[in-house]
Each structure stands twice: as structure tokens, then as C-alpha cells.
């Protein structure tokens, strides 16, 4: 006679078998994949980042000419009503220069480091709690940040200089005409105030670029596709990013071979700086530095049509100052 198993063991084994089957069924039901080619649906709400401050009673745009970079920035900001107009005590400020290229300051492909450093200092003087300087570079960021001179200059004035890292880019819904969902560089937009600090330069496809095109630096992903519709994408970006203040460095200007240059022969010393609360106006004025007019730049017309700013400089409270 064979030895049977105990009743207890029989029950336990049956229960285990039943439990296993139940678990498998549960997984099969819950994780069932129907298949098919469902495309990811856009869910996020459209995001606009407006860091603007009220405009009443002050100038909208100042052009400072003929002076050392530091003096140009100080005088221009002073004429705009001082940095206190833009930065309040305890603010977290982000300054976004152009740190796109592995070039030294003389080559004028990146924003002048003295301009950036002076802005950092003015922000702290106005009571900023923290000033972050960053950009999503085109060339290797470590080289761009160091060789542009911006890392050292901004750090010396107490700024937090942040190298862009992959994890800082998060998908957002810009809701633009060509730019809908894109990875956005969050370090740039997690702030109370944002100062756009581009450098004016020649660009073969867009003609002239400075303020509005500088927002390419807040995108990650496949930026190389934007060129296929450069004017609309620039306008889309400027719709998304509305800075507190725009400061266009035109101390040295790339007049050809932009946006990288590479030779001193490509640059011309202009000792000029534009401060503006209207980024469209800043570009409408800036493009005249390299002999273009606002009609040469379709992205200006697009931006104006969307009410981001104006290209009609007569409608602005504007002043030109001689610094030297």
C-alpha cells in the first residue's frame, strides 16, 4: 500500500496551486496588451512663461553706445530705471547668455563675459537671493562655458553657473505653430525673473539673430530640425518665453560667418548695448547694426502679429545714451 500524503499537506498544495493560477490570471488580465499602434496623446496644458514686470512710467528700450562693456551695462540699466525695477529682494534670477560655441570672447560668438558678470552683480545689488547663469550649448558645454570666459567671470561675482545636463530637460507643451511638445531646459525657467542676455550676430539662414533666437538655448532634443522653419520656430519660442529684461550685447559683433565666426576678421567692434523690455523691439533695432532692416527678418513680423512686442520703435519710450 502506498503511503498517502497527509490531509494538511494536500490542502496546502492545492491552495498553492490555486494561488499560483490566480496570480498568473491576475497578471494576465491587468497587464494584457491589446496591441495596435496607438500614438502617444498630447496631454499637457500649453505653457507660457511670462517673467515680465509692469512697464508703467519707465523707458522700454535703451541703447548705450561708446563705452567699456561694464559701463555700458551699468548706464543702460540705470537709464531703464535701475535693476530694482526688474529684480526684487529675494528673487531667484536666471541669466541666459549665449554660451553656444567653443569660442573665446574676442571671436564674439558668445555673450561678452563682462556683460554677463556685470548683470550678475547688478542682480545681487538689487537683492536677488540667487543668480543662475546657464545655457544649453551647441558645442560641448564644458568647453563653451570655460572658453567663453563666462564661467569664470560669472562665478567670480557669485553666480551659480550651471552646466546643462540631460536630466534637466523635461517635455513641455509649448503649443506653438511648429513647436508643440519639446524637451525644455528647466533650469532656465525655474526662476522668479529671467534676463535674456544674447549677443548680436550674423546668421546665414535667419539673417540676424540675438534676443528671440537666443531661446533656442531653452530647448533640448533635435534642435537641428528647427531650421526647416526657422522664423516660425523663433516666433514660437519667443511666444513661450517672455523674459523680464533683454540685454543685447553688441560690444563686438559677428558680421559674417555667423553664428560661430572663428576669425577676428569676422567681428567688428561696436561698443553698443541694448536693454529692452520688448524682445521684438530689441531685435528690430539690433539688426540695423549689421545692415539689416526689420523687413529682412520674417520672425519679427510673426512675433509682432502675435502681440509679443513691436517692431515700430516710434511706439516705444526709448533713449539713446553716450557712455564715454
Amino acid at each position, binding site marked *: 500500500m502506498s503511503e498517502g500524503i497527509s490531509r494538511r499537506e494536500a490542502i496546502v498544495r492545492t491552495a498553492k496551486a490555486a494561488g499560483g493560477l490566480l496570480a498568473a490570471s491576475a497578471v494576465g488580465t491587468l497587464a494584457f496588451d491589446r496591441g495596435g499602434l496607438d500614438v502617444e496623446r498630447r496631454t499637457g496644458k500649453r505653457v507660457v512663461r511670462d517673467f515680465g514686470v509692469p512697464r508703467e512710467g519707465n523707458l522700454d528700450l535703451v541703447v548705450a553706445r561708446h563705452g567699456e562693456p561694464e559701463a555700458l551695462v551699468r548706464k543702460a540699466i540705470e537709464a531703464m530705471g535701475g535693476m530694482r525695477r526688474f529684480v526684487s529682494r529675494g528673487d531667484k534670477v536666471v541669466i541666459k547668455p549665449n554660451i553656444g560655441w567653443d569660442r*573665446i570672447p574676442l571671436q564674439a560668438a558668445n555673450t561678452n563675459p563682462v556683460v554677463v558678470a556685470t548683470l550678475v552683480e547688478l542682480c545681487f545689488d538689487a537683492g536677488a537671493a540667487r543668480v543662475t547663469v546657464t545655457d544649453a550649448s551647441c558645442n560641448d558645454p564644458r568647453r563653451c562655458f570655460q572658453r567663453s570666459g563666462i564661467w569664470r567671470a560669472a562665478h567670480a561675482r557669485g553666480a551659480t553657473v550651471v552646466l546643462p545636463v540631460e536630466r534637466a530637460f523635461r517635455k513641455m507643451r509649448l503649443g506653438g505653430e511648429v513647436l508643440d511638445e519639446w524637451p525644455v531646459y528647466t533650469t532656465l525657467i525655474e526662476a522668479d525673473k529671467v534676463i535674456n542676455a544674447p549677443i548680436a550676430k550674423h546668421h*546665414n539662414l535667419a539673417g540676424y539673430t540675438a534676443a528671440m533666437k537666443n531661446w533656442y538655448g531653452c530647448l533640448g532634443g*533635435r534642435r537641428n530640425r528647427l531650421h526647416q522653419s526657422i522664423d516660425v520656430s523663433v516666433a514660437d519660442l519667443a511666444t513661450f518665453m517672455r523674459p523680464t529684461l533683454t540685454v543685447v550685447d553688441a560690444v563686438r559683433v559677428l558680421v559674417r560667418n555667423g553664428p560661430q565666426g*572663428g576669425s577676428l576678421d569676422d567681428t567688428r567692434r561696436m561698443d553698443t548695448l541694448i536693454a529692452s523690455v520688448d524682445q521684438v523691439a530689441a531685435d528690430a533695432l539690433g539688426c540695423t547694426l549689421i545692415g539689416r532692416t526689420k523687413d529682412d527678418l520674417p520672425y519679427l513680423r510673426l512675433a509682432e502679429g502675435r502681440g509679443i512686442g513691436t517692431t515700430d520703435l516710434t511706439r516705444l519710450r526709448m533713449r539713446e545714451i553716450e557712455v564715454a
Partner: protein
Amino acid sequence: MKPRPVIRTLVWLRRLVQGTCLVLFLFLLYRTEFRGTFGAGANEPVRLPYPVEAFLQADPFVAVMTFLSTHTIYRGLAWSIAILALTLVFGRVFCGWICPFGTLHHVTAWIRPKSKGLQRVKANLTKGWQRLKYYLLVVFLAAAVTGSAIGGIFDPICVMVRAVGLTVMPAVNYVADRALGRIDASNVRTLQQAADGVHGALQEVLLPYRQYNFHEGWLIAVLFVAIVLMNRVIPRFWCRALCPLGALLGWLSRFALFGMEKDHSKCTDCNLCLVHCQGADSPQGGVKWRQDECHVCFNCEAACPEKVIEFRFFPSRKSQLDSAELDRRKVLATAAAGAALLPVTRVADSLDVNYHDRLIRPPGAVEERSFLERCIRCAECMKVCPTNALHPALFEGGIEALWTPILIPRIGYCEPSCVLCGQVCPTGAIQKIDERQKLGIGQPPIRLGTAFYDQGRCLPWAMDIPCIVCEEFCPTSPKAIWVEPVDRTNREGQRVHLQRPRVDPDLCIGCGACEKVCPVQDRPAVYVTTVGETRSKTNVILLENTSYTSAE
């Protein structure tokens, strides 16, 4: 009886030195990456702050091999004389004390050993196959004499740099990225901030600045893991059987002043010495000690309860064997095989004919034949390249060029003002050029190749869509990529203004920036091939650059 205090001290000292050297090696490898600093001014040349290639420069196998192929000792390789000197005094202390790969084997064979007792004693008996490494050394040195530094494939330091630098470190970063990325995706703000903080901190001490990928790196990883796992079967299999550096130092150790003396009469055949032996060098009584296999770890003397073993200067040579007893015919045969390597590989179609169009060498690389004389495939250049442009070749340059550096522009382009690959190259395969030489300030620039358009894929050419990202990224001044303005009517009947890009072969430096940024994702519409590279007098397009005045 307890071992002499000096031996116990030496064993601990050895462990300390081993740990220190391994950590130092890993630190230098980790810092074989330009991090950038706020301390440097804009005009300071970009260089690495540490001598990251130090271990390779101290490697006598690299020095001897490249001396035989080039008849010169390249710069820092002179440091290898220090290791030679050490070996001539103490024997193979490099293997037992310094070599980071050796320490890795030591540790993997020691942690929870698979074999115990008698099994382990047997595993540590001297075996005939330990001679294999000497034959390998002969093969590689003979190949070096004929002009190939292919032995670098088996150099232990090269193996470590290549495997850890190109596969282990990037893999660790990949895992960290994915794990922290999961937390990042949680959309809980505090969690995200914590993950970002952890990630940022790790990037300061452990992780690289970005994710690097390497061409067919899996092969390097698989071989590395296999070699390391061999320790579970045969302790220190690599060191005993394969390592050509160990063989070279073993051969030299016959002249060492320091060594072991055995008092056979005291031996009780307890075999405790063999349980802990690293080199399988017959430390036990009754047989002759093999100085050339000994790593001088002192484990045997520390374990010996009967004072049979004593390490000392000028030991009596009675109880030792200082040669590996190689078979002369086999040595001649392997030397012939090594010497035959070069003609066999070169009559294939990789060098003199049908040179691969994508065998783009790093900036400052010497002419291909000299390059193969020098390149030890240590992968320092690939590890340091900030744009991840340099990769270990598979068979693009034939079997002879396995794991030598090639530039794959689609993954990363050559940053025009960067000269770090030359800075870290220990053998001068990539020369130490400066920025002025590379950019061509007051001299012709260094060209890696030439860019070409595939007009059937290029947006303005084939599809009447504006683009010219390539032109924007072209770093030369004036730009090598120029645009031809055209007005076209597209299919919908709209007028489109287009700029169609073209390459000026006179200005193109072959950096590959255009290829890297081309928006045609899978196969770019602009690509670089090697033709026009500065280092070659024959791989040329233009008549004006063709000259037979120099010896070729």
C-alpha cells in the same frame, strides 16, 4: 611558528599598495575627461589637470614594443624604466603589488574562493601552460619588430583602460541615469529634486558628465568579463597564462637581486604556501622555486609554519629555476608567426588597397603605417574625447587595426580647438599638437577628411525645404560649407527661397560637425570620409595637394 614580523608587515603593506594603486588607476581613468572649471580663463588652453596616462607610461611592455616598432622611446614612456629597475631588484613586484588588473584578479580569485583545500593547492601548482604568455610575448615583440603594436590588445593596462573606461564606466552611468530617471519621471517635486541632487553629487565623484557610447563596445566587455571570471576556475589565469607584460617582467626577474631561499629539509609538505600562492611559482619544499612566475606577494612565507621559505637579497640560487624552460623551436616558430602577422594582414585589402573611407583617425594622428607602429589600443583617446567622437574600430582597418581609434562623426564630431586625445596618447600615435597647429593659425590646419553631400537626401537639394544646419555648425572661417541661393517653385506652386549647401574641399577640415547635426536622422545627407586627411600623402583628392617630394 609565526612568520617573521617583517613579512607580516610586508603582506599588509602589499595589500595597502595594491588597493592604493587600483584606486589611483580608477581615479585617473575617471578623470580622463575634461570637466571644465570656473578657475580657468577664456584663453587658457584646455588640458587635463592630472597625468591620466601615467600607468601606461610606466608600462615596460608598451615601451619595449613601441621601441622595437619605432626605434624610439616616446616621451613619458621613459618612466617605464622605473618599473624595469624595480623588477631587476625585486622581481615581478609590479604584478603582485602595482598592476590594477592583477589586483582585480587577486580579489576575484580570493573572494569566497570556489576551490578550497587540496583543490586549491592543485590549482596553484606550476603548470606547463603558464609558458603560453612567453610565447605570446614573443609573437607580439616579433610583430612589433615588423611594425605593428598589436600586442597592446593583450597589455593588461590597455585591457583595463579599454574595458573599464569604455564599457564599465559608461554602463554604470547608464544604470544610474535610468534609475534616477525613473524617480524623475514620478512628477513628485520633492522626489525629483532629491534625485537631481543625488545625480549631481554622483557626477562630482563617480559618474561622467554625460552618457558615452562606444562602437561595438560589447565585445570588449564580454572578453573582459570572461577573463575576470576565469579566476573562479583558475586563480589569476590571466597573469599566469596570458599576460605579455608579466612574461616580460618574468624574463627580467631572472636578474633580480631579491628572491626566495628554501630549506627543503624543514618542509612537512603541509602545502599551506600553495593555498595562498598567486603566481603558481612552486614555493613548496622539494621542488625548485620559479622566480619568473613569482609575484612577490609574500603569502607563502607568511603562511609557512616551518620556516622553509625565506625571502632575502642575494638568495642562494640552488633551489630556484630562473628560466621558463621554453622550447627553442617553439620560440622560433612563434617569432616567425608574429613576424608573419604583418604581411598576412597587409596583403588583405585594408591598407595599401581599398583603404576604408570611414577610417577617420584622430587629429594629430601620424601616417597610417606609423600609426599602426604606435597605437597600442589603450583607448585613452576615446575615453577623453569630450564629444564621444572617437571609438574602437572593429574591422574597418582590417584585423590589424582592431580597437584602434576611429572618429564616427554621426556620434560625435571633432571639436576644432580640442587637442586632448594627443595629450593623453602615451605612444605618440596621436602627436601632442597644440591648438594653433590644429586650427592652422599661421600654418595649414589639420584635416581629418572631407565632407560630401548626398544630394538625394539633403533637404534643400532634394525636397526644397530650407535647412543648412550644417553651414551653421561648420567651424572654419571662412566656412568650408557655402550656400548657393536658389528660388524654386515647389509642388504646391509656392515660391521657396533656398540655400543649397556645398563643400569647399580646400577649406574643409573633416571635423564632422556637419554630419553630426544633419537632421536627416538615420543616414545623414552630409558625411565625412578620410580623403584629404593631412597625415596621408596619397589619400588625396586635389591635384594641388598632391606631391611626391616627400618620401612615401
